[in-house]
């Protein structure tokens, strides 16, 4: 029989026992819906967790520092291999070299300094930290008051809420206000000055005779945002500060930082001109690439540090979770497949005579088998499509409920539900396959039916 005739006859048979076939189809739909619901939950949770981990900035970053910095002063004289003796300086050249490594998304220095901030005529002291533009993706900035920096070098700042309360009991009122930043600008000395000879008789109280001189400066900054938590900036970024400014702006200020003083007492320090970084944070495009990049950085002669990739364990966890959710979801589908078998076996009993007539009119065993398969497949297809829709709707409802709950708890809403296209296709395909498998026995039985017996039967 031609496919179209087969489809027409199958459709006709399905319509004839409409209630029973509709209920069977609904059974498949419920099975598929439960499978889709379970797997979407798994996928959604996985996406959520990966997104959160990615936003934490913990697992895609490597902290790079010079080996010079790691070595204590006292141990400087310790016998070491020549390579470490010639420890590379973490300067702009090194930064650009690291930035060129494959899979490196960005490399930025850590800039942090203590400073005096004036607001409404009063002085406050706080650690000021520079934030790279990519930090806006971090979860700390989700639900912040105000906005992130408008430009990478904007003269703006974001306050940590505790500090903001010090300035004004109503932190929201601070947005758009100006804050005056006092800081010490570092000025390199002309190279004629010998840092070597003056190291010991230097008076730390003055700005002369060292590797650099210091100039007091001030800068007006507009408060654009207030954050609840302190945004971490890579592994080194915990508790990074209470006032945040754009990183590029912070760099341009040339503020004297803690490690600058190390240079004063270190004999091997380079001529004062080159900027040296205390540390660099390397952001890798994908957490999986962290070990390779870390290795490459170490080969360049720097110390590198990263947190163990937690996403790998996470993926394993979710693979197992998805498996279990899938098994539970499939249970309902297994029950539905029994429904198909039952319905089709019932149909054979009911259509005994009809099958006999079809055979008498020239139907082969194959025609009868295909007819039953077509009916099973059609129920599977319809049930699968309906089930995906049902599962999707169920997911929306659960998502809605979760968000309602989260909002009650004053937490930002989350999508814990995700129905990717592959899941839609796979669910419908799976439903059809399960239905066809369920149809094997009834179809074989119908095809085997003896037409003489069937026609005799009344």
């Amino acid at each position, binding site marked *: 029989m031609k496919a179209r*005739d087969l489809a027409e*006859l199958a459709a*006709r048979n399905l319509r004839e026992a409409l209630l029973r076939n509709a209920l069977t189809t609904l059974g498949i739909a419920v099975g598929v819906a439960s499978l889709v619901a379970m797997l979407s939950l798994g996928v959604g949770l996985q996406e959520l967790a990966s997104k959160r981990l990615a936003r934490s900035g913990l697992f895609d970053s490597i902290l790079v520092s010079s080996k010079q910095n790691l070595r204590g002063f006292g141990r400087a004289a310790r016998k070491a291999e020549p390579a470490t003796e010639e420890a590379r300086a973490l300067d702009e050249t090194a930064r650009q070299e690291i930035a060129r490594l494959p899979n490196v998304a960005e490399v930025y220095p850590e800039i942090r300094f203590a400073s005096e901030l004036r607001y409404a005529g009063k002085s406050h002291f706080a650690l000021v930290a520079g934030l790279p533009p990519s930090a806006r993706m971090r979860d700390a900035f989700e639900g912040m008051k105000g906005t992130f920096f408008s430009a990478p070098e904007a003269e703006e700042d974001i306050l940590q809420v505790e500090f903001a309360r010090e300035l004004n009991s109503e932190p929201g009122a601070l947005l758009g206000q100006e804050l005056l930043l006092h800081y010490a600008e570092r000025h390199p000395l002309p190279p004629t000055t010998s840092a070597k000879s003056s190291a010991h008789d230097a008076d730390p109280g003055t700005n002369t005779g060292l590797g650099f001189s210091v100039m007091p400066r001030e800068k007006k900054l507009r408060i654009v945002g207030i954050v609840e938590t302190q945004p971490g900036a890579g592994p080194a970024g915990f508790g990074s500060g209470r006032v945040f400014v754009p990183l590029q702006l912070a760099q341009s200020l040339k503020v004297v930082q803690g490690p600058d003083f190390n240079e004063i007492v270190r004999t091997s320090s380079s001529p004062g001109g080159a900027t040296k970084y205390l540390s660099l944070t390397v952001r890798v495009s994908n957490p999986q690439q962290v070990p390779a990049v870390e290795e490459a950085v170490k080969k360049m002669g720097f110390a590198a540090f990263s947190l163990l990739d937690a996403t790998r364990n996470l993926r394993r966890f979710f693979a197992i979770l998805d498996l279990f959710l899938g098994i539970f979801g499939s249970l309902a589908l297994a029950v539905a497949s029994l429904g198909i078998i039952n319905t089709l076996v019932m149909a054979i009993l009911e259509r005994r005579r009809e099958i006999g007539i*079809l055979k008498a*009119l*020239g139907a*082969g*065993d194959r025609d009868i088998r295909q007819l039953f398969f077509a009916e099973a497949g059609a129920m599977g297809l319809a049930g699968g499509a309906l089930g995906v829709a049902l599962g999707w709707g169920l997911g929306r409802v659960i998502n809605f409920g979760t968000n309602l709950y989260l909002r009650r708890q004053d937490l930002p809403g989350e999508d814990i539900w995700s129905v990717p296209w592959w899941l839609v296709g796979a669910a419908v395909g799976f439903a059809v396959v399960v239905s066809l498998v369920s149809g094997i026995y009834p179809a074989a039985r119908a095809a085997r039916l003896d037409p*003489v017996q069937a026609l005799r039967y009344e």
Partner: protein
Amino acid sequence: MANTDGAAIRTERVSRHYPMGTTLIRAVDEVTLMVRAGEFLALLGSSGSGKSTLLNLIAGLDRPTSGAIFAHARDLARMNPQELAQHRSRTVGMVFQAFNLLPRMTLEENVELPLRLAEVPRSERAGRVREALERVRLGARLTHRPGELSGGEQQRAALARALVNRPNILLADEPTGNLDSRTGEEILRLLSEVNQTLGMTLVMVTHERTLAERFAHRIVFLSDGRLVEKEEPR
């Protein structure tokens, strides 16, 4: 398509036995029979004599326990199931006592069924369905369902369905069994007309000897599965 010896159907010592516990029921027992092409043969016999069984063997709905059945020189016993289905589809048409129309289909759809199974192109179907139904004078009842028809009309529709694939052989198993005598006669007249105008070989099982004598070319008798010369006196 006729054979050299002019036989449309030839059976050679064909038997169909049913084992029932320790005994063997010989529903058809070593029947050797020849039906010429274009012949109208009536098959008579008492109930349980094996008439339907023999007809089903010729139709290819059942397989013989032993012996050979030739339909236009092709041995049905040697056909595989698919070839046998082809034989039922193309070579023979069947009419039953119980009409066996599908009750939820219209007459048109019932008559189209053999065309679907024989994979006749869609474009030809409507014309052939109409032609077949007009031949049995049901051209005006295309969209009616079997339940809306009288018994005689249902049997005519079943005849149209048996003819629609233009088979060489028409097999009728007590076509008048469920009809009153006037309607039965009408059906027989129609069968006879088909036999004559289309030259179709016709084997009809019947209980009604008078009708058989009026319309059939030849009458054979079955008794306990065996062919006998004369009907046994009952």
